[in-house]
Structure formats: structure tokens, C-alpha cells
């Protein structure tokens, strides 16, 4: 198996928790993993990305080459479009639709959504709304991981185990909320896919 994933968002939105969860799941499954993160200046509200590569074979580069990503997983709609050059011909774009507006020239939302919908394989869901509904607004990042999970070649149960490991220190309640978020995201994508078929 091989999953090359570009994680996208804005500094502080929690893409590193997504990466850590997939990473844990990959280690559990004895898969090879490389995960390039962004630390430092950009974390102050700038655009951030993480290249996450999981494979049953050894991985050479920490960076995913352009045109090779199987998945763009974005927790912010405009940011999902920034990494299109990395997406392969058969890759999926999975994004949150709630914008993070911290710049004065943020484009019209309608145009952003239109662009996302122009992509041949996309899933666009309102992760912030779903996270709010399950009572955990801060878990929208994990909702997005759930939404992208059908396109990641790792068992869902392994991802759930990853959540348990990553959030273990923060207590039972946080673990449960994030598990709920993961499942809710998964369900949202399954509903969209069912409509497509």
C-alpha cells in the first residue's frame, strides 16, 4: 500500500494532530512513514502544510513530489486549493468548508467553493458545524480526518486506536469526543459518496 497525503491548513488549526494520529496508526500496522511538518514562523497564523507518506515499502523522500499526492486533506477551504499542483490525476481533495479568515483580502467564499467543486474528485463538508453538533468545536480537525479516512489505505480501527494513543494524556473525555468526531466525519463522507452513486 501507499498513501501520500498533503495536510493543509492555517497555523494553529491542528493539522499536526491529524498527522500524529495517522502516524500512530501506521506504526501500529508496521508500515513505513515519513512526515514533514512545518514549525517556526509560519505557525503564527500563516499557511501550513505537512507531507505525510505511509507505505508498505521504504520511503525515499520526506517531501511528496508534485503530481504524486493521493490525497489533499485540508481543514480550510482556500488552503485546500494552494496544494493542487501536488495532487495526482486520480487523487482526492477533501476539505472543510468553514473558512479561517485572518487576511483582509480573503477571496469570495462562493468562488472558493466553486473552485473546489470544479475538482474532479472532491469532498467538501462543514467540519466546524459537525464538530459543533457533537459538542466539541475544537475537534473539527479530527472530523476532517474522519472525512478523509475512506481515502487513506489504513483500517478505520487503527485510526481509532491512534486517537486513543494521541489524546490519552488529555483524559477519557477528550478521547471520546475525538473518537466521536472521527466517526462523524467518516459518516459525512459516506453520505456524500452515497448520493454520488
Amino acid at each position, binding site marked *: 500500500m501507499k498513501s501520500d497525503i498533503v495536510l493543509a491548513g492555517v497555523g494553529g488549526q491542528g493539522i499536526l494532530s491529524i*498527522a500524529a494520529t495517522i502516524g500512530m496508526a501506521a506504526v501500529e500496522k508496521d508500515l513505513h512513514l515519513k*512526515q514533514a511538518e512545518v514549525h517556526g514562523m509560519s505557525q503564527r497564523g500563516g499557511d501550513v502544510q505537512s507531507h505525510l507518506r505511509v507505505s508498505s515499502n521504504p520511503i525515499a523522500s520526506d517531501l511528496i513530489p508534485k503530481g504524486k499526492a493521493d490525497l489533499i486533506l485540508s481543514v480550510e477551504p482556500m488552503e485546500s486549493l494552494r496544494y*493542487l*499542483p501536488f495532487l495526482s490525476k486520480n487523487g482526492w481533495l477533501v476539505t472543510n468548508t468553514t473558512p479561517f479568515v485572518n487576511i483582509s483580502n*480573503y477571496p469570495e467564499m462562493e468562488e472558493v467553493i466553486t473552485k473546489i467543486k470544479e475538482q474532479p474528485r472532491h469532498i467538501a463538508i462543514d467540519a466546524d458545524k459537525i464538530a459543533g453538533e457533537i459538542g466539541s468545536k475544537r475537534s473539527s480537525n479530527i472530523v476532517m480526518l474522519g472525512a478523509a479516512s475512506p481515502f487513506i489505505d489504513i483500517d478505520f480501527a487503527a485510526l481509532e486506536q491512534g486517537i486513543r494513543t494521541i489524546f490519552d494524556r488529555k483524559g477519557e473525555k477528550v478521547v471520546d469526543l475525538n473518537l466521536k468526531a472521527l466517526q462523524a466525519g467518516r459518516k459525512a463522507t459516506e453520505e456524500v459518496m452515497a448520493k454520488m452513486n
Partner: protein
Amino acid sequence: MQKLLLLGDEAIAQGAIDAGMSGVYAYPGTPSTEITEYIQGSRIAKERNIHSKWSSNEKTAMESALGMCYAGKRSMTCMKHVGLNVAADAFINAAITGVNGGFVVVAADDPSMHSSQNEQDSRVYGKFAMIPILEPVNQQEAYDMAYSAFELSETYNVPVMIRLTTRLAHSRAGVVRKPLLDEKATSLPKDPTQFVLLPSIARRNYKNLLSTRPDLEAVSMDSVYNKYIEGSDKSLGIVACGLAHNYLMENFQDKELKHPVLKLSQYPMPRKDVERMIEECDKILVLEDGYPVIEELLKGYQEAGTPVIGRLDGTIPRDGELTPNIVAKAFGLTIEEGADVPDLVEARPPAMCKGCGHIDAYEALNIALEEYGPGRVFADIGCYTLGALPPYNAVNSCVDMGASITMAKGASDAGLQPAVAVIGDSTFTHSGMTGLLDAVNEKTPLTVIVSDNYTTGMTGGQDSQALGHLENIIEGIGVDPKHIRVFKPTSANLNEMVNIIKEEFEYEGVSVIIPRRQCIQTMRNKSLVLKVKELGL
């Protein structure tokens, strides 16, 4: 053995701990910070009481680490590339003293300047100091190199540099550990004059250093990190340094690489391997993440010999980080990129956080400066450097740690008054204090704003050496207490802040203004909140 999932930085930290290191000394700097942070959080390090507290700057860190090595223990110092400039005096001379316990210097370079003001290549420094350099290709090598570097240092009586770049420093992968070694006992150098660099002794030590050269080249030949991989197509030979080897292999996952390859991760260069490549190949491509250091060495100034291509002839761009796509292009491989980035996607530069005290300080400063006109604010390195961007447009320089005060002094000497310096608390104790002394001694008309947030913010909220001492230090340097003005930067205090700043502009001497409010990113750091309370700040 269970694999640990570690950043390149963390792999170095774990490798050093497992090698029996007794202390790490460092000042935070992206992308090197996580090395020391990992050691601070390590259970073994706590049990062994391994030193890991932050130093005031990279020079004090380097010297303290050298002192620990003098006393027979294995020690390490870590810094970002520009930090090595600060520590350069100690660094170059540590090569002349040699070591007692193993001494490892980690330099984390930042090609493409993700979080830096330049992309200098620390391998140049390593070559300058004439010491071995290890450049890991992946996280496992980062671990293995840190583990073995101390012994290399002890065997050849030289400091050893580990050089990595941002991409590896901040990328995670599985790492297998080796057995945990004991720490070294405290011991004095055999020769009591070894560390006394009086000219007569330095000349002797320097000759010793020069005499290790052939040995170090031989070690590089035998190194497990360097490999000459045979190839049938000798029209081209490839030298792939450190991380560049990954990008090379990425492009040949599904096709055969027929050219000979020298995987190069330990310097000085393995002379025989290099000579072999020069001899058997028609042309040599050098791939390196950083400056064309090896390319220049191979090329030299003479046109004769095997042609060398890389960054200097444009095969690879002269600046910026190496990527798999750039390497693909060098081989003429076609890249099927995804769709273009749509025009509507706007840049999203980093910015100061909502509610940050620096913002309130800048708002007051901008108003106070209105009547004097722009172009007179010299800033420094930290989150407040972002005040250079809209909507603040509040500062006019950012050069190196501490340069705010000294540049403002020079501009004031030239007649630009008021001249203003903006510096953070941690940067002030890093490199601002000596410049302030220059200004005090000359009674230079100068307004210094030490924007105090009790932390080293930009790198993620590490301890600030200034915490609890700031006014004492400033007074001790000789600033008149009447002109040390402290206030809490909030929007409610705007008028008061503006008035204080304006008053100090009128003063014909050195004023220090301290807007003081805790960094909002550290509000969840309970021990810091408690400490601030205890100090009555």
C-alpha cells in the same frame, strides 16, 4: 526493537542521550529548537540529571558545552545556522583546543529561509574549522550519527559537527535505538596546557589539527555513511550529499539508476571515492541541500578536468531548498504536476496573534512617531519582527540578534533622532545588553523598547533568561532609573503609552521603555504563570 517515531531533531537528541551525553547547551532557534526540548522532556535525561536548561545565547552555549567537554564529559551544543555566527569565535577555537570528553556541535540550516534571514550553509563553517562533518540522510542516520559522533570526537581529538536542514529536522520517521551507554566520569585533560591557546601552544595544537587531516579522510573512506554505488552508465556520475540522496532515489523508484552514485554523508570528502568518480565518469552532477559547497570543491577554478554540474551552472537553481521535483528536472524527467494553483488563492503570511502585547506597543509607537515621520525604528529577531508587515508597517530593520539597539545607536549618531530600537526580552539578554552599554557610555539619544512577554515567543515559548531581572540588568548597565518606563500594553492604556513614548523621545540620552504583558501563547504554561505571579510582575 520497537521503533520510535521521531523528528530528525529528536533523533539527534535521543542518539546523544543514548551515547552517554552529560549535557546539552543551546539557545532556541528554528529548526534546531526541538533537539533541546526533547532532552528537556526525556525521562532518562531527568534520571541522569543531564544538563538541558537554555543558555543566554549560542556563544555562551558553545562555551559551556566546551567546558563540560574539558571536564571529561560528553557534551553537545545545538543551534540554527545563524546561531553559529554568534558562536563562531568559540567554535573555530574549539577545533584548536581539541577535546577531552566528546564534543558535538549541531547546526540546523534553513534553505529557502522558512524561518530565517539567510540560508548560509554550515558545512562551510565545518570546513573552515577543519573538523569532521556528518550530514544525515534520514532520521535513523541522524540518530546513529549522534550516537557515534562523540567517539569520533574523542578518537581524533576534534569537535564533530552534525549538519542537517529544515526538512529533516522537522520530518518524522521510525528510528531504532541502540544500547544506552554510561556517562563518562569527570576527568581533566591529560595535558594541562591543551586548552590554553597562547600563541606558542595554539601553534602546536594547530599543527596537531592539521596532522589529523589524512586520518579524517581515511575515516570518511571507511564510513558507513558514505557509499560508492557502482553504475554501468559512466557518462554521468552523481554526488548526492545528505538529504539530497533521498530526492535522487525518489526519482528512481520505478526505474533503474544506471549512473555511479557517491552517497556523501561524512566529510572531509572520501578522497579515493571522489578521485574514482572523477576518473571514471565523463561528467559529475552534484546534488546538495544548501550552498554548492562540494560542487565548488570539485570544480575549482580551472576549466580542465571532468565537468561538474549542479547549482553553479543552473542545472539546479542557485538558491532555495532542494526538492524531488528539482532533482527530476536535473535529469530531464517529466513531471505530471496537478492543476495550477487558482488565481483566487491569496498569500497568507504569518502574523502576530490576536491579543498579542506587541501589537498594542506598536499601535502606541506608530502614533507617537507620527510627528517625526517614518524610517526610524530598528527592530530585532522575534515575533515583533512581524510588525514590519501591514497593517502595522512599524519597523524598518531586522538584521541579526541584538542589531536593533546598535543600529539605532549608529543612526542616532548620524543625526536621525529620535531613533528607536524594538527588541524582545529574550533577544535583549541574548545580544542586546552590550549594545546598550555602548549607548549608555556615550549618552546617545536613543529610545529602546524592550517588548517583554516573559518568553522566547517565536520559537514556541521557551524560557527567557531575562525573566525577573530585566530592570536590574538595565539599571546595572547604567540607564537612569527615571528613564526606565514600564507599562502594560493594552488598548485601554493607549494614550498613556503614547505619552510615555513621546516624553522619552524628548530625553537627550538613553531611555528604555518596557511594555510588559505575558505572551498569549504561553497562558496555558502553568509553571510560567506561577513564576510570573511569584515575581510580582
